[in-house]
């Protein structure tokens, strides 16, 4: 029997339900995420005023911050600790006795847990729309391509998270790896500050990495910073990173699984 979509759906559903089982945590995430967006809005409103900075006026910055809120909520809402814990406490022994592709099962779980952030995103975006009235996408095509870019964020986030978690097979620790990944992601994605504010050499480094596709790519498409061909190019790059990270994950896992040292019964 091969690992079919029914199994993927089952894993994703279980992960989704598991996240929502902790309602307080879900509410806290909504309050914190929404709060952070409000603080950013207030800060940038004061900085930009009626002018513009690095090509961002207040209109475009409002839209950018909401896009950043969406991507940060989704990306940081995934249950990476659940996967890391299973490697570190030896529960991976159980996973390896099941007839499922380990990576594919973890992808389904991760995407299921990311999906549990969608209600937070909807509430946050509706609230932001009502409070700040940001501009819509520059065109219907841009809107559609932005949505495509958002969808690709799910497997792209998994790819980056999965590779970083696999490092646990060697390091036996996850916290430091997580901090490093989130720092790189937060900085080079443009979530903290748009890449346009960085010097060009730093932007070049950012674009050599997958991280800009989390915030900068959807924002650039939405705000019309790239034309349709440019948008398709960015989406193609995002998809290429997704595919590359997937196969990179498979390669690393093949070696990582030889390092399993589950002691104690």
């Amino acid at each position, binding site marked *: 029997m091969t690992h079919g979509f029914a199994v993927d759906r089952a894993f994703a559903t279980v992960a989704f*339900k598991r996240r929502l089982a902790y309602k307080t945590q879900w509410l806290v995430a909504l309050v914190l995420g929404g709060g952070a967006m409000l603080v950013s809005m207030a800060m940038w409103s004061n900085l930009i005023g009626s002018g513009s900075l690095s090509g961002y006026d207040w209109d475009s910055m409002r839209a950018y911050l909401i896009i950043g809120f969406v991507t940060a909520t989704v990306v940081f809402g995934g249950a990476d600790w659940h996967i890391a814990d299973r490697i570190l406490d030896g529960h991976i*022994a*159980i996973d390896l006795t099941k007839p499922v592709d380990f990576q594919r099962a973890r992808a389904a779980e991760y995407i299921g847990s990311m999906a549990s952030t969608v209600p937070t995103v909807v509430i946050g975006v509706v609230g932001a729309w009502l409070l700040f009235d940001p501009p819509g996408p520059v065109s219907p095509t841009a809107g559609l391509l932005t949505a495509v870019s958002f969808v690709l964020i799910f497997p792209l986030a998994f790819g980056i998270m999965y590779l970083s978690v696999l490092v646990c097979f060697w390091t036996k620790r996850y916290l430091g790896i997580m901090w490093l990944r989130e720092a790189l992601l937060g900085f080079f994605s443009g979530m903290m500050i748009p890449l346009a504010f960085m010097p060009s050499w730093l932007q070049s480094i950012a674009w050599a990495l997958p991280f800009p596709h989390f915030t900068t790519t959807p924002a650039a498409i939405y705000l019309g910073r790239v034309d349709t061909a440019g948008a398709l190019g960015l989406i193609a790059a995002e998809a290429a990173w997704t595919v590359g990270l997937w196969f990179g994950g498979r390669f690393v896992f093949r070696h990582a699984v030889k390092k399993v040292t589950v002691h104690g019964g």
Partner: protein
Amino acid sequence: MPILEARSLTKTFRRPDKASGFKGAVKHLAQRKYKNYTAVDGIDLSIEAGESVAYVGPNGAGKSTTVKLLTGILKPSEGTVRVMGRDPHTERIANAHDIGVLFGQRTQLWWDLPVEESLKLLKHMYGVSEADYKRRIAMFDDLLDLNEFMPALARTLSLGQRMRADLACALIHDPKMVYLDEPTIGLDISVKDRLRAFLRELVNDGTTLLLTSHDLADIEEVCERIVVIDKGAIAYDGSITKLKAHYITTKSVHLHLEGAADVPALAEKFPDYAWAAGQAASEVVATYESARHSTAEVLGSLTAQLSPRDLSLSEPSIEDVIRRLYAGELTK
């Protein structure tokens, strides 16, 4: 062809070799040293389809490491293992579909979800049909009272409930080869009895079973063959009947006499038996070689000459044999 065949199976782990204390930790940062530790040392093991094999050993002997090698969790350092013709490590997914595994110390349940959700996820994983799933759940309910806690979150279960649920998880797909590592932890005696009867039936239906347990009653009631592992190597491999016949060579008669028992006098009167005082002053134990003396002969001579108030017969249990095997007091 055996269903499971391991040849020279070896697993060596690399452990940090550092001195204790703060200095040791700092020194290890600069100068990393490692020691090799062999958990499983050149094991040859062959199991035929339909066999029920007990795999026992003292703590740290290598039992669980062996099970992890056989199930494909760990890659052997040396040697080979084939299960149903497959390498369980490199052909992990195919192998996993035909095996059921229960690790007593690790749950298969999804901790934050009801037991029923975990079982349904496993149903999808193994491709169990709805009809088979319902039939097996009904069977597990009958045996293990599963419905009592199906809606409960796994993290709220008692140990005994968790073990029962884990057993259902290991068997939901009717596997051909089953590995049970300490399956009766936390179960009360009536559930243990039912579980042992169930496992016997499973074996009678053709399932191959490898059972590790420190409860030797599990082993005696379920398994025909016993493999004893100690310090990573096999100390004994044979039928339980032969183990008992080989190592249990004595029997004991416990006598309650009318007056106080005079052990030296009894030893002089019956020099063929070994005598020891019992718990009370009037109690005494006579131990004899069962190959040299029949029970009827011994009982006949003791009752005729001593007229005891009461007597009982006992022989060393398999626990005594295993204990002596662990202690290295017995050779193969």
